[in-house]
């Protein structure tokens, strides 16, 4: 049987080569489908790896509390909404922070409160600057580095701020902006520190600190009628080994504080690393749809072209049967041919997907796409499944042909 498989492969190669244009066009559907899959997976994998590396760099001892029950990443129905609504009415409070601080093994806790509004200095203003209200612990938890000046601490004034290097350039035209004044929602703030450029727009805080303005939690509350609207609480455990118990302890503490209502989630490890950007999910969903549709269309294309091939070669089927081919031989012959189209399409798609991923990541993103054997396996697996699934019917049809009827066919 093995020998015959080799023979069928040779046969499929010859036959596909003799109709090269047709074969290539048929492959296109699978190519587009597999390219989409590869693109999504390599980019999301790359983004995940960025965060994983960051967390690992910090010692792998970071956990994060976010409002809402299910981790946002798996909620596909959230993709349609432009902003995560659960963030707008956060269930996390300052009291939760205090409760977490009491959990054994917790070294530091920092809230992230995002304040909406404009940042302006003179004639320069920016409306999409992330304004982060937090506590001094954030610097150690998120591994921020202050280039000039100092970070906010317990004794700094309420109207002082630390700004990202890029924001400094945007507002003042220089990254030497200590002592300069700017306005957040019309309120005056003085720059007491400028962060070192990190170039990490993707991180588990979902904040590009290069563009951010950081103020104290007290200032943040003053923008929100004195109430802390905490979008995320970052927790640092004393070391990696105590992280699981910290996560458990946090869950218990918050459960008690929230009267066992599960309106929060504690994330660590892979859950934390998965990309959370809504835009990313929108793009990924669109690409998934493209992948699914083109795989189905590609599969139907394969089926169509295989039916044509079988019809064209009816006489050949008759001859082969007359010379001793069994139904199984004929099925295998045509199945391998459709499989070859599928795998060919998959291979091209895999390569095209990575080319696209590199173009995208080099032009608009800050990280490289991820290479992994899982992605390669999935790409090839998908194309194999498409090739077999849609080639099966034509192949069986070919094998069922009556030898004498097939031999009578003239072209």
């Amino acid at each position, binding site marked *: 049987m093995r020998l*015959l498989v080799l023979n069928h492969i040779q046969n499929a190669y010859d*036959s596909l080569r003799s109709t090269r244009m047709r074969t290539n066009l048929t492959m296109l559907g699978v190519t587009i489908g597999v390219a989409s899959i590869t693109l999504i997976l390599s980019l999301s994998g790359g983004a995940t790896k960025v965060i994983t590396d960051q967390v690992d760099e910090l010692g792998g001892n970071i956990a994060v509390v976010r409002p809402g029950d299910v981790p946002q990443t798996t909620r596909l129905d959230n993709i349609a909404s432009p902003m995560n609504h659960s963030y707008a009415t956060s269930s996390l409070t300052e009291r939760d922070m205090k409760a977490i601080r009491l959990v054994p093994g917790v070294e530091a806790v920092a809230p992230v409160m995002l304040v909406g509004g404009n940042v302006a200095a003179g004639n320069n203003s920016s409306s999409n600057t992330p304004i982060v209200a937090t506590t001094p612990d954030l610097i150690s938890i998120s591994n921020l580095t202050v280039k000039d000046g100092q970070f906010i601490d317990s004794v700094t004034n309420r109207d002082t701020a630390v700004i990202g290097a890029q924001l400094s350039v945007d507002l003042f035209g220089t990254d030497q902006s200590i002592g300069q004044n700017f306005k957040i929602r019309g309120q005056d703030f003085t720059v007491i520190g400028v962060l070192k450029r990190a170039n990490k727009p993707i991180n588990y805080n979902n904040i590009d600190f290069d563009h951010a303005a950081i103020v104290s939690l007290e200032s943040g509350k003053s923008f929100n009628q004195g109430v802390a609207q905490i979008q995320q609480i970052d927790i640092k455990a004393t070391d990696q080994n105590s992280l699981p118990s910290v996560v458990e302890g946090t869950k218990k503490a918050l459960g008690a504080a929230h009267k066992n209502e599960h309106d929060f989630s504690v994330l660590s490890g892979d859950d934390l690393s998965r990309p959370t950007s809504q835009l990313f999910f929108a793009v990924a969903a669109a690409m998934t749809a493209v992948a699914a549709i083109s795989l189905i269309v590609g599969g139907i294309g394969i089926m169509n072209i295989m039916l044509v091939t079988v019809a064209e070669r009816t006489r050949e089927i008759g*001859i*082969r*049967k007359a010379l001793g081919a*069994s139904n199984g031989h004929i099925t295998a012959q045509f199945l391998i041919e459709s499989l070859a189209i599928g795998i060919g399409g998959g291979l091209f798609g895999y390569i095209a997907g990575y080319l696209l991923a590199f173009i995208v990541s080099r032009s608009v993103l800050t990280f490289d796409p991820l290479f992994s054997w899982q992605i390669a396996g999935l790409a090839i697996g998908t194309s194999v499944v498409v090739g077999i699934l849609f080639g099966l019917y034509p192949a069986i049809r070919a094998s069922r042909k009556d030898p004498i009827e097939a*031999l009578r066919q003239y072209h």
Partner: protein
Amino acid sequence: MKTNPDAPVIALRGLKKRYGIGDAEHTVLDGVDLVIEKGEFIAIMGPSGCGKTTLLNILGLLDRADDGDYFLADRSVESLSARRHANIRSEQIGFVFQNFNLVPRLNVIENVALPLTYKGIRKTKRLQLASKMLQTFHLSEREYYMPWQLSGGQTQRVAIARALVNSPSIVLADEPTGNLDSKASHVIMEELSDIHKRGNTIIMVTHNPSLTTYASRVITMLDGKIDSDTKTLQPTVKVDTTKKRLDTHAAEAPKEKTLRSRRPAKRKTIKKGASK
């Protein structure tokens, strides 16, 4: 197939084949009874359209009869699975088609090697055997030609080479010399004789009476029936003529072959109709 070594290779009883339905229906085989023993060399003759090809197709398990029984080595072919049919075609039967039926996509040597593929023979070995077979038919320089690059006679020789390459025990040849001059015809017939001498069964359709000398038994068909049969009416003839032919064949010069080959026409092929 090893059920009964003495059983006839092929036994047909009341075999019928009809084409068309209703008013258009016509019977192409109208009750064929025929017993073929192992090692016979049968020539089937008869006017065009009398059903020779149809009969051969049924014998080669390519077609099915509408009525009657076909026993192959004592087993009814009706009872065998499609898979078994394929296996028999692969292992035991070599079929030369009237219209050659080479695969147009494949070159000459690939065409000849094709039956070996389904016996599971390795590629290099396949090509070796095919090449050897082609050599027998003086086609060595044409191995890598495509079928459409061959003359009619060359095509026919390739078709015969393909039928014989897997050393079948039953050769079904539908006018294997239809496109060949008498010299080339005799080359083919010598080859078939050789195979016959090795104990295999050969059933050949021919329109050329001179070629029936090679046969051990001549059957004439008319309108879907067996019209005359050298064996059933003169059971001893078969043995005698075979022996005679084989004996004389070796000694005789080619020139005399033509003379000798006319002889079967005069032979006592007593027609069924004549006895009425």
